[in-house]
């Protein structure tokens, strides 16, 4: 009898110890949703980062939900409708403030100490509340093939904002670089615009990219406080027409259709299809580095200006969802993810720029990530990219305006007419202006 009681006691004690041990070992579970662009192997890279986080944490465990980039918005919106949102995610820029306006995003302003917060220019803000910071700093730049400039005995595009080309200077150089199949430039008599083998310039016509020239001209899509629509201003239509005229009038740019069929930026520069092209900083790591081994020698400069030297900055944010049952853990994870040391390969590899001021504070700090074989020469990169980003960048309106994607849909809905010359920029913008105003008024933060 005694032995039975003793056995029971021992069993109860063993269960108690196991139960306490289990509770102590139990971690707070959170989920993180991310996208892969082309191959699912990218998911393995993200998982490796999460593994690093998990092994460094005693109390939090994060599980990845990975979705193809093409289906990302659909998946997230469906999860939101079904009230099954993850705890954290990386978010597509245009949908961020829409989620913030619906109260779904947690305040991220309280996550960082003042000296460790990401750059203010990377803050997605709704009604004064920061709901996320870009995972990286990205700006729009002018890339060019150095050899083509050398061959044409032309000076390289300016690498400092204060010396940015005027639009007229930009077009003038582009004409000298544009060549038809007989070797004639766009300035020569008998130039055959139907058989161009080298285009002098390609100013990116993506609906969110081209307005940077309008901003430079004093216009844009909307005012930086998101309270006034500027798409119908003469400054905006003038800039839009100038970009369209690169193909229509100046004969230095490919048609929008031809552009759509061109390969990646590194190949278009390497093969001499285009001499100068505007795109984002990420191209250094995503595209340009791939052709270095094939002999591509490229340079980077600041965008041409109409009035003031300006570029756009952007970057998808890491966010935490306000409805998360483990919000503190979710915020801790987001903070960890935005620490540069966890995406160092992407930064030194030229895809991302750091988000913290400390990496821009001294030349030594800048050289740590930007002075390597993948980046352009440091002196040029510093002024054309880093200083430009710090002093001349303005946010794409999706940092503060809900549903910027709807405005983009509208602007894009008939842009082929402008690019192909069947309508002037002014005519086209006038035709969509009432709808744009309606959309703007419906979504303007009040």
């Amino acid at each position, binding site marked *: 009898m005694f032995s039975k009681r003793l056995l029971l006691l021992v069993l109860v004690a063993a269960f108690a110890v196991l139960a306490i041990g289990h509770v102590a070992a139990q971690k707070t579970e959170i989920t993180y949703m991310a996208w892969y662009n082309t191959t699912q192997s990218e998911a393995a890279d993200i998982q490796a980062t999460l593994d690093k986080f998990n092994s460094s944490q005693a109390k939090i465990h994060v599980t990845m939900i990975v979705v193809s980039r093409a289906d990302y918005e*659909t998946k997230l919106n469906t999860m939101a409708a079904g009230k099954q949102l993850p705890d954290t995610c990386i978010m597509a820029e245009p949908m961020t403030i829409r989620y913030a306006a619906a109260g779904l995003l947690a305040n991220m302003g309280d996550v960082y100490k003042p000296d460790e917060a990401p750059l203010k220019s990377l803050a997605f803000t709704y009604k004064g509340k920061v709901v996320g910071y870009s995972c990286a700093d990205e700006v729009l730049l002018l890339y060019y093939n150095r050899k083509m400039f050398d061959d044409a005995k032309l000076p390289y595009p300016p690498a400092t904002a204060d010396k940015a080309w005027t639009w007229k200077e930009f077009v003038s150089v582009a004409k000298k670089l544009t060549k038809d199949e007989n070797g004639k430039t766009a300035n020569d008599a008998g130039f055959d615009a139907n058989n161009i083998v080298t285009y002098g310039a390609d100013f990116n016509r993506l609906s969110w990219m081209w307005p940077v020239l309008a901003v430079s001209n004093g216009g844009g899509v909307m005012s930086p406080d998101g309270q006034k629509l500027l798409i119908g201003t003469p400054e905006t239509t003038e800039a839009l027409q100038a970009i369209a005229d690169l193909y229509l009038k100046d004969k230095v740019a490919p048609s929008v259709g031809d552009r759509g069929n061109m390969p990646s930026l590194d190949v278009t520069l390497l093969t001499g299809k285009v001499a100068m092209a505007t795109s984002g900083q990420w191209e250094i790591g995503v595209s340009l580095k791939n052709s270095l081994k094939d002999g591509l020698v490229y340079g980077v400069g600041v965008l041409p200006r109409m009035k003031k030297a300006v570029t756009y900055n952007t970057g998808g944010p890491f966010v935490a969802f306000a409805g998360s049952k483990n919000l503190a853990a979710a915020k801790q994870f987001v903070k960890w993810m935005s620490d540069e040391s966890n995406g160092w390969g992407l930064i030194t590899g030229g895809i991302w720029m750091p988000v913290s001021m400390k990496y821009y504070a001294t030349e030594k700090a800048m050289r740590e990530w930007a002075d390597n074989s993948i980046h352009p020469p440091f002196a040029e990169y510093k002024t054309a990219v880093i200083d430009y980003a710090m002093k001349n960048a303005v946010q794409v309106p999706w940092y503060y305006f809900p549903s910027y994607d709807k405005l983009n849909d509208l602007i894009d809905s008939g842009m082929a007419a402008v690019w192909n010359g069947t309508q002037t920029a002014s005519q086209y913008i006038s035709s969509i202006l009432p709808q744009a105003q309606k959309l703007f008024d419906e979504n303007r933060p009040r």
Partner: protein
Amino acid sequence: MTKRTPRTTLTAYLFLAPALLGLFFLTIFPMLGVIGISLTKWTGLESPTYIGLDNYTEIFTSDFYFARSVAATLYFALGAVISGIIYSFTVAFMLNKKVPARGFWRSVFFLPYIVPAIGTSIVWSWMYEANFGVFNYVLRLLKIAKVQWLQDPRMATPSIIVMAVWGCGSLIVIFLAGLQNVPRSYLEAVEIDGGNAWHKFRHITIPLMTPIIFFNFLMSMISNLQIFVPAYALTQGGPSDATLYMVYLIYREGFMRNNFGHASALSLIFFVFIAILTALFFSTSRKWIFYEGE
């Protein structure tokens, strides 16, 4: 005949249950849900707000994309249906003749129908590629200027129509079955009366095939009006909304732009439109369809 008892009734319903459950849970309830959602302003991010018929009013009065989407959809559907019917009937007619390796050719023409649409879309996008695609390669050989097949708003829908026509394998099979059922005795009667091949085709084959033509026309119209995959996989509704077909617009409004109420109203309007179109075809069918024995 077995007498109906509670037990046999129960058995019958048990056998019907899978179909009925599917009908209710996958068709009727979602449709009722769509009707309900269409009466609300619902982003999917916040609770829905009842707004009555405002979504419908908005669609017919101020929706920027509705009219152009309807136009794009009708353009595609009419193009795809008419070309598809002509193409598949012609192919079926030829495959009904005693051609060498007839089984092989029948498989070849049916094959596109069974290949997943997303796969064929990607392959076609390569063929339509402006610099290295096969079509522009041929044009280059013929010294003809290259065409921006999917990048030019004027060419995008015709290019997608060609893809749709290529995938008409099911229509060919149905036409073929119909052609094989045309009685030989009727055709021989024409021959005895001195008629030629055209007379046989015009006065025997075509009239006897009208029920099949009607069926294929209707099914093809309904499926082509609901075109989605090429707009999703190849053009994303562009360029300049040239391929903003209705189902893609519904998808974009609902799942990408968080206008679920608006998207639901669009889908119901589209549903009613297809139903009316179908009823119209049926109402006119007696005038031009020949049913043997009537």
